[in-house]
């Protein structure tokens, strides 16, 4: 466990929730087009996820970038694993890989 409380909180959130999206804004009111795009993909697939708004907390906004060595938001986590940002999620959705990934991890989708 990290001694950094923000990192600890991230570890806890991605452990407690099957699918977590760190995003700008909320799933209902995304504040950024990239975050909105990922919400749309997850909604299309019918995946339940926890959206965490990084705009409410500057330390979280910075911390999540350090946690994944990934410089941008949104960031999608499935069963604790960092899957990617907007480009990767869109690419995987277009190819069908994302639906497969959810299925292989036992995450319920509309199709399943």
């Amino acid at each position, binding site marked *: 466990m990290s001694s950094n409380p923000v990192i600890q909180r991230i570890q806890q959130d991605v452990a407690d929730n099957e699918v977590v999206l760190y995003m700008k804004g909320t799933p209902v009111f995304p504040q950024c087009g990239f975050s909105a795009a990922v919400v749309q993909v997850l909604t299309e697939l019918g995946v339940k996820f926890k959206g965490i708004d990084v705009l409410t907390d500057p330390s979280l906004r910075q911390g999540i970038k350090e946690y994944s*060595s990934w410089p941008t938001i949104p960031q999608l986590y499935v069963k604790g694993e960092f899957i990617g940002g907007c480009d990767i999620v869109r690419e995987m959705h277009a190819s069908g890989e994302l639906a497969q990934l959810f299925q292989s991890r036992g995450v319920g989708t509309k199709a399943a």
Partner: protein
Amino acid sequence: MAMDAAEIERLIKQAIPDADVAIEDLRGDGDHYAATVVSAAFAGKTRVQQHQMVYQALQGRMGEQLHALALQTAPPPTA
């Protein structure tokens, strides 16, 4: 805050010398780009790892000076 397309390409090629880089300025504002990067260095790596290599090449500018860079990465097609 904006960045020149040529500068983005230079940084990527500096870190990944064999990279084939194509950059498009999506809005003409020097702030929203799409880049396609093809390099043998990506072979056997996950997409996350491939993108991380490009982000590393940009030395912290991604998310700072550079607001939006839509990335597509791939190893070269095997002949």
